[in-house]
């Protein structure tokens, strides 16, 4: 087996977005682990200055520098995977980088920072800072070991991007900038960035939970992406996070939801397990069973609504103990099993 079939073969820049609270950073990290099979190198980029990646991988705050944070998820029963690097990009660092890379102007860049130019540029025109940040991600995506035609440094880049409400604007850099700059170097730069983002090499994945608002935002986000960019930016998968699996068959769930399950029957079942029904324990457990059934029903409705978008979807379970490193690998394995990586 030399190549595995995944849903996103050919995609090298994975942009991960999602509403706040849906676990976007966690999913981005799990995706990076899943993509880093043996011999591959994956870069995980954070753009919002939250140091969420450092917390997840339990390492010191990330500087504006690519460093190795983890070993990827190995193939099942076949040792360890490749390398996962991480980088925290901020507009200021990206600007200095840009000045150095294209104009060899690092020192001037520092002077500009002192004068508040960076603050100025990123405040007055958020489009500019978006270009700088996405520019760094696309640069890492395109970077090669040596001359043209040599291997890429990173097999894949995963970007923990801004939330769903802002993602289309964030990615639609050339339009953002063209309002401000018709010509000039930043425009040229924006166009280069846009070419990568608008190529089949880039896909935008949406992370959501099975709740009303995140689902609505996901659908709105997908629609906005299509509308703003006319399908030029490829919509990726919908990654459902923190799903609670149904613990009962559909018929019993329906009965539990409508309140028609018999409490005395439940009490008999409990007794068989050595638990007596004192102080109305069975009735209390029945209440929880009903909550569970209602939640499963809500999840089913929301899932159905999500599927109307027609995008491939993946489903990650809720991990009741909270996310630690082991939990991340577990999510990575689930993503890989479902074909996301």
């Amino acid at each position: 087996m030399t190549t595995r079939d995944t849903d996103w073969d050919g995609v090298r820049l994975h942009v991960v977005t999602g509403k706040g609270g849906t676990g976007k950073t966690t999913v981005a990290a799990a995706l990076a682990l899943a993509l880093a099979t043996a011999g591959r190198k994956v870069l995980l980029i954070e753009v919002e200055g939250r140091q969420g990646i450092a917390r997840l991988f339990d390492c010191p705050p990330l500087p504006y520098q690519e460093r190795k944070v983890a070993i990827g998820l190995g193939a099942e029963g076949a040792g360890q995977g490749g390398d996962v690097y991480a980088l925290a990009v901020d507009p200021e660092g990206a600007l200095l980088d840009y000045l150095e890379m294209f104009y060899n102007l690092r020192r001037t860049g520092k002077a500009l920072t002192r004068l508040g130019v960076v603050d100025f540029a990123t405040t007055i025109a958020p489009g500019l800072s978006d270009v700088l940040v996405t520019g760094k991600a696309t640069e890492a995506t395109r970077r090669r070991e040596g001359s043209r035609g040599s291997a890429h440094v990173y097999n894949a880049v995963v970007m923990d991007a801004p939330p769903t409400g802002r993602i289309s604007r964030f990615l639609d850099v050339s339009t953002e900038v063209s309002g401000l700059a018709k010509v000039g170097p930043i425009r040229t730069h924006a166009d280069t960035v846009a070419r990568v983002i608008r190529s089949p090499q880039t896909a935008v994945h949406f992370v959501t939970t099975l709740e009303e608002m995140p689902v609505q935002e996901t659908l709105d986000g997908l629609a906005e992406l299509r509308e703003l960019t006319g399908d030029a930016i490829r919509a990726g998968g919908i990654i459902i996070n923190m799903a609670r699996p149904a613990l009962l068959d559909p018929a019993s769930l329906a009965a539990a939801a409508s309140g028609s399950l018999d409490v005395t029957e439940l009490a008999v079942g409990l007794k068989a397990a050595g638990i007596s029904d004192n102080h109305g324990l069975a009735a209390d457990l029945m209440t929880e069973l009903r909550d569970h059934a209602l939640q499963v029903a809500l999840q089913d409705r929301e899932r159905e609504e999500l599927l109307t978008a027609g995008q491939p979807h993946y489903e990650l379970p809720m991990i009741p103990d909270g996310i630690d490193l082991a939990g991340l690998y577990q999510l990575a394995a689930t993503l890989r099993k479902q074909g996301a990586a």
Partner: protein
Amino acid sequence: MTAKPVRLDMDRIIDDRRTRIIVCCGSGGVGKTTAAAAIGLRAAERGRQACVLTVDPARRLAQSMGLTSLDNTPRRVDGVQAVNGGSLHAMMLDMKRTFDEIVEAHADPDRAAQILANPFYQSLSSSFAGTQEYMAMEKLGQLRHAEEWDLIVVDTPPSRSALDFLDAPQRLGRFLDGRLIRLLAVPAKTGMSAMRVLNAGFAIMTGALTKILGTQVLKDAQTFVTALDTMFGGFRERAETTYRLLQTPGTAFLVIAAPEPDALREASYFVERLDAERMPLAGLILNRVHTSPAGRLSAARSLAAAETLEMQDRPDAPATEGQRYSIAAAALRIHAERMQLNKRERRLAEHFTSAHPTIPVAEVDAQPEDVHDLAGLRVIGSILSKQGA
């Protein structure tokens, strides 16, 4: 050993006529909008003339409050069971429109048109990360000034960090009053001769800016800054007036969080920040808490019992018995999971309360379904107030 938090008495805050502003803040996705709407509704139904200023409500919740369009003016909410002259209005913030209105109110028509058409203004007014926060503050100031409502409940913009709400207006104000803006405005105002007296860094700076941005962008920026210069001299002052309003005792800050590490970390930062700024903090609302009516049965015991049942599940057993056992086993597993979650959430909440033992806390149970009507809001409101009892 666990620190027992003081309970937040929401009704006391609502019923105190001196409370004029309630600010709901917290990181994104913790249920700020729902909390703000629930508090507004409860206040109206307890006799206050309340206005809820919301930023980004879920569609169905917005519809239930009669907010079908973003029209930037408070609309009366129907279906409120108001007593003693209470009423509820609600509005969704349109940040660009609020900004446009400020421009139109403070500049003559020609200049206003010039500003509104400038690409920098358009970029700033529709996408600057702090504009929404600034405009929420501005709108709050306007609503408060209108004296039509005796209680305004504000839902702060969804942002990465809860602190943005406090910082962004000042950042915008500082930016518009900033040194660089002054520098950029100089050539247009006094001509190039004045530039020679400025420090030598300026030449390097404009050189580099031209290199990065191009001449056209720099020119547009200068035009924009010059146009704004006259009318926005007091921009920072406006931000500071609203800021001071928030420091008065008539304001009550509520920090909203979910029992998640990130949300509670943000809540901690915010609480400390409010304290440093002498802003009146009323308490913490801990949303979406998982409790169990059967807390006397531990997760471990419940799980063990479920396993016992599952092992007894023989294929030759009568069908009814199998069914009975599988339902009981599922109930026990569901309970065990809930207890596990509850334990984790308790620990997280205790982290917060041991660090901030004097801050009153109200907990709201996770609802099995989303809140999207007044009845649902009423339930949240009553849960919030039960805490004081």
